[in-house]
């Protein structure tokens, strides 16, 4: 008890030291407005509003929208009125926001003692555009293969290490008559949905989006990736053909699915008995080779329009530094908000190992070497990615069958996009 109080006092002291200069300056003069998508870590921040007010002199306010709506609204809002001091953005739209100057370079206004370098290297990579950091991570990670230990053991299957082994295992485990399925794939449209998972195959087969500024994705790699992805849908749970993260993770956590390749934050949900009926029954390892895990990150960036002067930008930077501080990450760890832990000092801490065990930690460390930025890092990526998402959904649901025709259509669209820049 005494030790816990001592730790809390130490944390509080450290946090006060970090923000001492901010507090003295009363850096914020008005409420910080944030456009975000719902995250447990952000909800948790709201219970510490008084702490931020004491440190900065002002409070903050979140407006929440779900992921797709947040993307649509933030783009429209930043391009027109731009009333938000802080935007929640993600790896797919950092290029668009940075190039359009809707956000400003983060580190110019992020206090040095808030230690940006402590963030996981992969997350810092996706938070940058042209080598400049634009957001501080709230969540992120790579891919893991999640498998039902009990089901695989009963079937005499070891966790697959190659794509061939993975497909053979899915065929063996898929049993729709009993309402049990081999896997759950994202079929629903979107650069962050079906395209996100498809890209791991595309990159695995050597695919590239652009070479020397010209579209290069209409290739054998894209054909093979698409054919493989479509073939695997034979083993995917119903509802996933037009579903995304929510549908596939619900299918897995409800115990209807044997294996799933998904982003790493799922581990936190899977091991939470309140959200999952398979807690304690799941094994974690790296995705089968040669799949290239999709590195991703979401975080908070400083809006350009609403923060007209340097003082306002400093206030937004101070808010982001506080919201993504080590102290707040430790609070998330304590609350079991696994997906929103981004600092290496927290991931490698004894408290993390104690909470989630060695297996998840090892899988996370191991998967980092198979993780890359799979999407086209460009302001036009959301547009191109979403266009491919529609075509891919058409192919998955059978409303069209010509893979080559779909890729040709996408290439024509890509050429139009490039021509207008």
């Amino acid at each position, binding site marked *: 008890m005494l030790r816990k109080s001592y730790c809390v006092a130490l944390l509080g002291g450290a946090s006060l030291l970090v923000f001492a200069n901010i507090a003295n300056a009363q850096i914020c003069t008005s409420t910080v407005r944030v456009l975000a998508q719902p995250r447990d870590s952000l909800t948790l921040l709201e219970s510490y509003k008084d702490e931020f007010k004491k440190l900065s002199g002002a409070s903050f306010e979140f407006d929440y929208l779900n992921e*797709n709506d947040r*993307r*649509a*609204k933030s*783009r*429209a809002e930043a*391009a*027109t009125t731009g009333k938000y001091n802080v935007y929640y953005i993600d790896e797919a739209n950092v290029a*668009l926001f940075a*190039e*359009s100057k809707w956000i400003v370079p983060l580190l110019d206004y992020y206090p040095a003692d808030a230690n940006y370098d402590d963030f996981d290297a992969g997350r810092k990579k996706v938070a940058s555009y042209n080598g400049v950091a634009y957001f501080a991570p709230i969540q992120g990670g790579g891919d893991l293969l999640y498998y039902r230990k009990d089901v695989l053991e009963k079937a005499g299957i070891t966790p697959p290490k190659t794509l061939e082994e993975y497909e053979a295992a899915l065929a063996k485990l898929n049993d*729709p*008559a009993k*309402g049990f399925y081999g896997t759950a794939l994202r*079929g*629903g*449209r979107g650069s962050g949905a079906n395209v996100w998972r498809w890209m791991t195959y595309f990159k695995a087969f050597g695919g590239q989006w652009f070479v020397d500024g010209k579209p290069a994705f209409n290739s054998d790699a894209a054909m093979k990736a698409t054919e493989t992805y479509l073939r695997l849908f034979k083993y995917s*749970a*119903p*509802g996933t*053909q*037009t*579903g995304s993260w929510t549908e596939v993770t*619900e*299918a897995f956590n*409800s115990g*209807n699915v044997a294996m799933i390749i998904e982003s790493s934050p799922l581990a936190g949900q899977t091991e939470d008995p309140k959200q999952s009926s398979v807690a304690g029954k799941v094994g974690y390892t790296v995705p089968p080779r040669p799949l290239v895990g999709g590195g991703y990150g979401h975080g908070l960036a400083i809006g350009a329009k609403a923060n007209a002067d340097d003082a306002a930008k400093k206030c937004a930077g101070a808010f982001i530094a506080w919201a993504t501080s080590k102290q707040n990450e430790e609070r998330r760890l304590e609350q079991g908000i696994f997906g929103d832990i981004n600092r290496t000092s927290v991931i490698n801490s004894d408290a993390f190992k104690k909470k989630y065990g060695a297996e998840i930690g090892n899988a996370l460390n191991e998967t980092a070497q198979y993780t890359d930025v799979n999407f086209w890092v460009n*302001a036009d990526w*959301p*547009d191109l990615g*979403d*266009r491919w998402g*529609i075509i891919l*959904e*058409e192919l*998955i*649901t*059978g*409303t*069209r069958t010509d893979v080559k025709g779909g890729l040709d259509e996408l290439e024509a669209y890509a050429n139009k996009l490039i021509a207008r820049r």
Partner: protein
Amino acid sequence: MKRKTSLPAVFLIPPLIVLAILAFVPTIAAVNIALQNRELSFPNSSYVWLANFIDLFGDRRFINAIWISLIWEVVTVTATMLVAVLLAIFLFERASPRMRRLISILFIIPVMLPRVSAAFVWKFMFNPLFGLINYPIKLLTGAPIDFLSLPATALASVAVVDVWQWGLFFSVIILKLLETLPPQPFEAARLDNAKTWEVHFYIGIPMLAAPLISLVFVKMVESLRAFDLIYVMTRGGPGIATETLDMYAFSQGFVEAGKISYASSMAVLMMLATIIAFTILWKWVRKWQ
């Protein structure tokens, strides 16, 4: 002797000015944007005149969206009116006045639910793994039906929700209209041994022609505004199987591309098509009446 007064003008002109501003300013702005190449991610734009409109007719998703919108309009308006008339007649013939009042309250509840809430409830009910609708199907056939992911069933499934909301509500209105009709023509027909369906087909419905036509127009306008229902339930999918014109315009303007001029050109065409279609229908109905 009539005395000239300016009082009507005093009362009428201010609201007419407000209405004109509300109607014409957004319309003129939409037409103006449609003639440019404005995109959210580009600070500058220029006039491209009819280029967006020409591009639209070479866009397969736009052509598809026209068809889907037409099918949606015809299916939901027809199904709503059929369900409403049949249910109203059934209640009028079979239910006691007390029972009618009780059922009327129940039938009004669906339309009072916000569209988005209704869409979420039904989306969950259609879920192939956990949905209530799929439970008996799985028991009977051994496999669920993924209603919202199958091209053959997706649009019809969303239409069911629309008809559930509006068909039941309209049935209450039609029931109340039937109750207001004079009973003598009905009694005379029954004395002449007319069957129940004949009584209503030849007497009841023709007597209610004017209010029924009004309801058809109300539903036509309402069906044009089904964006939220479709957006929540299918997002226009599977593929583009439920992508209506408003869905596609929103998608191009804000979700996928940020092409607000392109989206505006769709909105302008939709507005023109709606004005022309409703004018023709209105004139046709008046002639028929």
